[in-house]
């Protein structure tokens, strides 16, 4: 039995090499893409959490302020330390300082406690420094930082013991490098000093920035957290350190999911190709299978054989996919780092470490796709009436399935139901922060398109058939009308691939247009200066105050963070100098803008923040600010495509009134009209930026850079679209060829009746054109629907980005025309194959 199955599979592979290879390739691509994304992300996450572990240790819990301006009071650290359930509290002050042009992380440590939790950060005394220790005035630099410092200054000055000056805003600490950090990771730019020294120079007063807690072995984390929850002073969070992992994976989650959906598309097309291949294979071999059935091949074996053949495509395809995916992952991480250009993780290339279980998972996915593709053909094969198939060949539909009017009504009803379900799904909220319902709706739209295709075909061809047509045309029209299955297979490939392409083009174009408009709105000033997460140097701010600074207007912005949910990345807090009466002048609002009632502090939140935390314009919100919770009024929601995890804007006036210091990190600059030409301002910005090692650019550059990044990040999408179209066209060619082949006898009969070769070719080409046209029309409709779902449901739910739908007709219609032309070429090829057979031989073979 096994031997027979093997003979048949081998025969199948030998006679249909191209189709089999392509199906295998598509499956391999889907598996490879998904697996590569998994591997890369896994490695990047592991690398990132390894880095975090090195700097943070592995505490059980962490106490931290909710906003970046807050602190953990010393009293709380002391209270926690005396808790009998606590084995160790490690207080840490972490800040960023500027050393020359470098922005460096400075960690203030208490060696007594930190030595136990974060041994990687323990400093080593410089050999030349005797009688010194970490409690003395001095800093310890990571090897990477030492190397950087060494390369930036004349040789020798930055060896251990050399002087170094760290600044943050107007705070300065001039000291010396007392030693290094031998266990620091090779690319960490890191300074360590005694916690009290860091506090004395950079704050926070009477507090630390974080307490990392290790519990006594017999303390239950959950109980302990619960007991402390109520005792915690306001403005602080106490969270299980495991939440860090959740935060981390939340960061790249939506991004990953979208890439994985692309992988799923590839896998689906792979499955579709298996479907097309196996369906035509079944059709072509229906007589053979019938014979085997007559000879005694059990019905379930006729089913199993086709499934087995599908699997024979899927197994090697998936195996190739795993290897390909691994190779892709290695190549990509070497070239681009662990975030595929997404900008979430930075640093060195992470190490790709495949594990058995995920590999098995992706392997099974590939096999499952091929099995799913073979399922319907297998069932059809199982249901073939043996005696009839042996005599007349493939039956396109199972027996006794002629449509009665009632059945037709049922079909229309089913189509309407599916459409309704798809519509309902687009209204459903995100599940686990993922647009799963949106994806389901997309799947339903595609199903709908495929299911609707025969109905459309019947209608169109019934209408065509009523007209007076030339003989060739009549034959073509009749064939399409009477061979609904093959036509449907051919069309559905085009429907799916064209729908996906149209939807992607639509989404990308909508996004790009929205991005351009947004960039115009958020970049009102001609010049911008920005330091990398650090307060701008006091010297620069002073220079701006001088009368020779060529600017008419300067707006400062300070960026901090606030944590509203310990499991999510914090939202950005943007303190901006803007007119509270007219925030629209600076923020691209979406929807209404309310004026705060008297006495309320207005804030304006970004769309991602609105959606992540389910907020509404006009409501009040307790915002962690300045180490406490401040009640603020949500005055409006503005569009933001840059901070995926949310941002909230507060006017600098209000922030100061609350007792906050605005330590500007960003500047928007408007040149003075009388300052001569624009070049003066530009020169000023460039010189100051170079002097302080910060960014200083014109708005045009930011705009160009942003769009460039956008285009690059969607390059993969374009490649996939091209692949999808090729697969769709290939599907059309394969099915057309098969359907022509199936009707070889009929064509031969026509030929014998006086049709010449040209007429036959024309008939077959027309048939292909008709099928392609219907596939493209339905695909276009589905594509626009899917594009709308992607734009209005998936994007807002996955990335919390909203935008208007833009259908790029100038790309879609020529694309459709091109595909139609390619479809006609494919059917011409099929026609030539068919008409090349001498009619007499075909008739004589009488298959």
């Amino acid at each position, binding site marked *: 039995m096994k031997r027979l199955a093997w003979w*048949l599979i081998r025969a199948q592979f030998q006679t249909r090499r191209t189709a089999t290879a392509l199906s295998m390739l598509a499956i391999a691509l889907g598996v490879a893409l998904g697996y590569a994304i998994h591997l890369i992300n896994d490695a990047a996450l592991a690398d990132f959490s390894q880095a975090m572990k090195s700097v943070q240790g592995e505490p059980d819990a962490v106490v931290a302020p909710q906003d970046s301006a807050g602190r953990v009071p010393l009293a709380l650290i002391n209270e926690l330390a005396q808790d009998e359930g606590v084995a160790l509290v490690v207080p840490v002050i972490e800040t960023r300082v500027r050393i020359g042009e470098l922005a460096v992380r400075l960690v203030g440590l208490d060696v007594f406690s930190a030595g136990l939790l974060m041994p990687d950060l323990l400093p080593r005394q410089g050999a030349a420094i005797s009688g010194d220790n970490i409690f003395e005035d001095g800093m310890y630099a990571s090897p990477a930082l030492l190397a950087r410092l060494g390369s930036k200054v004349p040789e020798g000055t930055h060896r251990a013991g050399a002087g170094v000056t760290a600044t943050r805003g107007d705070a300065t600490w001039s000291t010396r490098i007392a030693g290094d950090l031998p266990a620091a990771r090779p690319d960490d730019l890191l300074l360590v000093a005694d916690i009290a020294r860091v506090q004395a120079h950079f704050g926070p007063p009477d507090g630390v920035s974080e307490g990392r807690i290790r519990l006594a072995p017999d303390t239950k984390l959950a109980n302990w957290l619960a007991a402390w929850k109520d005792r915690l002073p306001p403005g602080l969070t106490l969270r299980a350190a495991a939440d860090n992992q959740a935060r981390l994976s939340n960061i790249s989650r939506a991004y990953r999911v979208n890439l994985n959906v692309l992988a799923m598309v590839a896998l689906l097309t792979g499955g579709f190709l298996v479907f097309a291949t196996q369906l035509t294979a079944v059709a072509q071999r229906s007589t053979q299978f019938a014979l085997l059935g007559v000879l005694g091949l059990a*019905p379930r074996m006729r089913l199993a054989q086709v499934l087995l053949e599908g699997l024979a495509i899927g197994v090697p395809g998936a195996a190739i996919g795993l290897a390909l995916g691994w190779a892709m992952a290695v190549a990509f991480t070497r070239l681009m780092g662990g975030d595929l250009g997404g900008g979430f993780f930075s640093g060195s290339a992470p190490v790709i470490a495949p594990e058995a279980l995920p590999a098995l998972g992706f392997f099974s996915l590939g096999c499952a796709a091929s099995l799913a593709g073979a399922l319907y053909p297998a069932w059809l094969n199982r249901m073939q009436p043996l005696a009839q198939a042996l005599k007349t060949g493939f039956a396109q539909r199972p027996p006794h399935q002629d449509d009665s009017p009632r059945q037709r009504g049922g079909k229309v009803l089913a189509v309407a139901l599916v459409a309704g379900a798809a519509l309902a799904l687009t209204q459903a909220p995100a599940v686990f922060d993922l647009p799963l319902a949106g994806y389901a709706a997309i799947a339903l739209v595609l199903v709908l398109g495929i299911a609707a295709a025969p109905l459309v075909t019947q209608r169109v061809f019934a209408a065509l058939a009523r007209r007076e047509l030339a003989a060739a045309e009549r034959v073509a029209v009749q064939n399409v009308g009477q061979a609904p299955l093959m036509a449907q297979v051919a069309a559905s490939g085009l429907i799916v691939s064209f729908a996906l392409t149209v939807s992607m083009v639509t989404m990308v174009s909508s996004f790009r247009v929205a991005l351009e408009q947004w960039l115009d709105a958020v970049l009102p000033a001609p010049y911008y200066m920005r330091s990398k997460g650090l307060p701008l140097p006091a010297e620069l701010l002073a220079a701006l105050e001088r009368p020779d600074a060529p600017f008419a207007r300067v707006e400062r912005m300070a960026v901090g963070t606030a944590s509203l949910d310990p499991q999510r990345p914090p939202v950005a807090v943007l303190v901006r100098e803007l007119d509270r009466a007219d925030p629209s002048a600076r923020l691209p609002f979406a929807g209404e803008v309310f004026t705060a009632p008297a006495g309320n502090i207005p804030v304006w939140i970004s769309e991602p923040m609105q959606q992540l935390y389910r907020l509404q314009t006009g409501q009040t919100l307790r915002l962690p600010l300045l180490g406490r919770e401040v009640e603020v009024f949500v005055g409006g929601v503005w569009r933001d495509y840059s901070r995926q995890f949310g941002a909230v804007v507060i006017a600098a006036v209000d922030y100061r009134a609350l007792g906050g210091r605005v330590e500007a990190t960003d500047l928007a600059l408007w040149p003075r009209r009388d300052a001569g030409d624009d070049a003066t301002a530009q020169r000023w910005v460039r010189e100051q930026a170079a002097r302080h090692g910060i960014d200083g650019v014109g708005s045009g550059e930011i705009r160009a850079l942003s769009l460039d990044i956008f285009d690059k990040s969607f390059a993969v999408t374009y490649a996939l679209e091209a692949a999808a179209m090729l697969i769709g066209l290939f599907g059309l060619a394969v099915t057309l060829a098969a359907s022509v082949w199936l009707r070889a006898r009929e064509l031969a009969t026509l030929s014998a009746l006086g049709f010449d070769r040209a007429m036959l070719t024309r008939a077959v080409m027309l048939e292909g054109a008709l099928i392609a046209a219907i596939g493209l029309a339905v695909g276009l409709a589905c594509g626009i629907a899917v594009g709308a779902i992607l734009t209005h449901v998936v994007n807002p739910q996955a990335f919390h980005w909203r935008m208007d739908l833009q259908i790029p007709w100038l790309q879609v219609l020529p694309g459709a025309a091109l595909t139609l032309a390619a479809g006609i070429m494919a059917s011409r090829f099929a026609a030539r194959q068919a008409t090349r057979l001498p009619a007499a031989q075909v008739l004589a073979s009488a298959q």
Partner: protein
Amino acid sequence: MLSIANLSKRHPHSARPVFSGLGLAVAAGEIVALVGESGVGKSTLLNCIAGLETADAGAILVGPQAKDIVRLDEAARAALRATGIGFVFQAFHVLPTLTVAQNVAVPLLLSGVAAREHAPRIESLLARVGLAGFGPRWPGTLSGGELQRVAIARALVHRPALILADEPTGNLDPRTADEILTLLLERVREEGASALIVTHSQHVAQSCDRILTLTPDGLQ
């Protein structure tokens, strides 16, 4: 080897039954010719006997165990065909993607004959149908007569009790037809099998042990 009693069959959309109350018996080793006009239901009867179509009423007992194929489910019918029945078709139906030897091996595989018996059985049978050395060849290189010889070998290789042949010489020229018929009858007799041969040819019919004629009114 074959015993049909009270068999009735009507096509789904047809008012008239194909046959009703039909009875027939073929003894062990007996070769019976079935003749009749086109469309009278000879092929339907053959399909019913093979379990490819289901009779509406009656019984068809096949093989030494006299299993009633009408009452068997689809899988059991397939199993019965695999072990108990050999087929010869007008259109040969040799699988083009398998070699001659592989084609002949199919019934052995389907009926579960031990693998070590395959090669000797196939070789000797191919020799006896005049195709010694044809084993590795592909069907595409064979003539119609040769293809039908392959089909005869395939019908007999698993030693079925009953051979069903539907116009076995219908696609052959008269001279080849004679050869093939002689071969078929000789081999069937040699194997001790029973056979029911549907044919339009008087020559074929007269070479059989008994001739039955199917008419719209029944068997005669």
